[in-house]
């Protein structure tokens, strides 16, 4: 008798548990829409949201592009969700594409929203679009292969990324909004001619607002100074092009009479991939040095002009200034900053051929 009662009891428990599984709203993965790319624009106090959603079909994946406007980002997303047969989950959002105009207005609110939300991963990339979102997505829809992760792949580090592009994630932008001594660069793209999307340089973001733009070449330098694996990038000069194999930097900072001085020593190990005529090793080294110094000067001029510390040079003065001073680093110290770059090119090898 007791055994029967026990068996019945445990069966009842299991049944109740099973019933429970339906209790709250756990939708299966095929009933969720998982947008990969979100475009944001802001016109006349309304957010325009574009979502690129891969739709799994039996034969493959098709891409859906949906757009809505709303007073808040969430309202717009909800509107899209209401028009879809499955609900929109932003869990897998990988790229936030911001229209340039909105970036110039300031992204702080949106970025804060993204950080606050549990759905959106702080690892999502932030990218600026240098044209109207509608035209950009139209171009993507028409010209790009409908593969699940098409657009995302062009930005992600282990896929379509190359060292001329900046690579910035939401949490880094969020950090730049609050941090005293650190800003970020966000890559800028626009639709290209032959069915591609073109990279046109990087935006200088200061406290979440776009204040300037640097060229791809400058971004490469920016990446190497920041130590972001510049491996495998071709550097074009008059006489040759080289492949950067590895790079390392050393910094020495001084603060004299409240004027910050920074010496940066950049060591590049390169391999020669292409030559014109018969340059000597020394010539290549000299030219490399010259080109880089010139670029750096341009880059730093832009930084000074925009008062945005994308190189994070302020970080080197954290041990020299008290916290109260650090908080106005960008306004008081950065403009007076003196930077000296020293480039140490090392030609590690010459490829398969001897350099005559």
């Amino acid at each position, binding site marked *: 008798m007791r055994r029967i009662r*026990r068996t019945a009891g445990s069966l009842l428990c*299991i049944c109740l*548990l*099973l019933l*429970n*599984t*339906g*209790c709250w709203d*756990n*939708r*299966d*993965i*095929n009933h*969720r829409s*998982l947008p*990969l790319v979100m475009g944001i624009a802001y016109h006349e106090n309304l957010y325009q949201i574009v979502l690129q959603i*891969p739709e*799994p*079909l*039996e034969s*493959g*994946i098709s891409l859906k592009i949906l757009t809505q406007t709303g007073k808040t980002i969430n309202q717009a997303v909800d509107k899209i969700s209401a028009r879809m047969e499955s609900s929109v*989950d932003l*869990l*897998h959002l*990988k790229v936030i594409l911001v229209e340039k105009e909105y970036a110039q207005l300031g992204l702080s609110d949106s970025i804060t929203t993204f950080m606050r939300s549990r*759905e959106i*991963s702080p690892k999502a990339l932030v990218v600026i679009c240098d044209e109207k979102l509608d035209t950009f997505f139209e171009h993507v829809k028409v010209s790009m292969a409908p593969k*699940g*992760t098409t657009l*995302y792949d062009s930005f992600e580090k282990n896929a379509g990324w190359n060292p001329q592009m900046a690579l910035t994630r939401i949490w880094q932008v969020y950090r730049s909004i609050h941090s005293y001594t650190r800003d970020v660069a966000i890559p800028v793209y626009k639709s290209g001619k032959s069915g591609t999307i073109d990279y046109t340089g990087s935006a200088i973001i200061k406290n979440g607002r776009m204040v300037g733009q640097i060229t791809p070449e400058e971004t490469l330098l920016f990446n190497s100074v920041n130590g972001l694996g510049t491996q495998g990038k071709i550097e074009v000069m008059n006489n040759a092009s080289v492949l950067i194999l590895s790079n390392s930097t050393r910094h020495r900072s001084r603060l004299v009479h409240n004027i910050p001085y920074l010496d940066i020593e950049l060591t590049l190990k390169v391999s020669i991939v292409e030559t014109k005529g018969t340059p000597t090793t020394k010539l290549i080294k000299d030219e490399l040095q010259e080109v880089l110094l010139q670029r750096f000067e341009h880059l730093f001029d832009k930084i000074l002009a925009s008062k945005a510390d994308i190189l994070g040079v302020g970080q080197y003065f954290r041990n020299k200034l008290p916290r109260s001073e650090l908080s106005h680093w960008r306004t008081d110290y950065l403009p007076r900053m003196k930077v000296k770059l020293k480039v140490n090119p090392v030609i590690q090898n010459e490829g398969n051929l001897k350099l005559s």
Partner: protein
Amino acid sequence: MGFISRIKEQYAVSDDFFILNDYLLETPVILMGFNSLMDWTLTKQNLQTYINTAADTGLGLEEFRTVLGQVETASGMDKASAGLLQGKLIIYFEQENSFIVMDTVARTLDRSITPPVNENVFQGTLSSFTEDINSNIGILRKQIQSSHVNVSSYTIGSEETRQLTLVYYEGHADVNLIEKIKMQIEQNKHQQIDNLQQLSQRMMGFRNWTLVPNLNQTELPEEAANFLRNGRALLFMDRLPVAVVLPSLLWDIFVLGSDRHMPLPLMMFLRALRVIGVMLTLILPGTYVALVSVNPEVLRIELALSIAQTREGIPYPAIVEIVLMLLILELIIEASIRLPKNIGPTITMVGGIILGEAVVQAKLVSNLLIIILAATTIANSTIIGLQQSLSLRIAKYIIVILAAIYGVFGIMEGLVLVFAYLSSLHPFGIPYTSIMRCKKEVNHG
């Protein structure tokens, strides 16, 4: 009532029972026994040889009787009955109202020692235990030739008797453990034991309502010897071709004594595989449910999209899908045990077709699930002991259900629950999760 009439009353209904009048050195006797248990012709010849020898040497009846066996007065039936049922010949002397239980030539009712059927041996001793308790202990004694292996036998049950033998390695086994086991057996001696469930519940006093087998068993003498050396006790029951290991520990799932025939790294690799197998069995189905229906953000996007694609058009939630398929898998496993060996492969084939092809094509389950199920079943089979693998199969469902409710969190807490359950068992005061090596480490558990 006389002895004979009582015997007749009890056994005459059986056709294999014979009762004959005969003369033994000119004394009238009655011979009784079971045809089915003894080879009567040979026994009769033997008896005749005895009689002739006795007649030649001029032995008196009294002396001759002691040669044949112990003389018992026929007051009680117990000894006679026991003797009869064991296949002995009863020689009853009417004049003195006494009888002798004589050894006979037994019919060979036991199979010979064969390789194991339910357990596979990988480079180890091939013989396995049989139904005969004495051969079992003999095999074991061959395996461990030590004067410290103690054997104590008990006859248990009142209506139906059965022999139960406790074997332990003195100096290796914990004295307290042996004392406790002996006490349990002495206390419950009169209980009737037909199966291991009764052995564990009635004899050993374990709770019957446990998910994990209280008694571990092995049919390999080599493993049994290893258990003895590690301080465990073994129980043999007559007509049961396994050695019952006391206490059963979690560690037994991962460790086989014959692993030690291999070099240490290989042994560790094998054992690590089994641990991984257990973890995968527990986690994999739950992970599928959790990732598909509760926490899809954990999946990489590429994986998420391909899973979503394979699940396109499947009409029910992941939990139903997986429980359905797990059930079919369990049925296949059960069916392949039930069927005779020569039709067994049919099940494999039919099951393979169902699982591999048709179900997916019919859009009843996603093909990722098939992969998960196959992996689970394979992983489940890596662990040692059929009963343990069965309890693991059941534990898996708890985790699947929790995963359906709580997602990845449910898996984690399900694991904690399983761990807590395993930790809560302590047969004979020895924690189920402890590692038992030899006597001095028992206390540290």
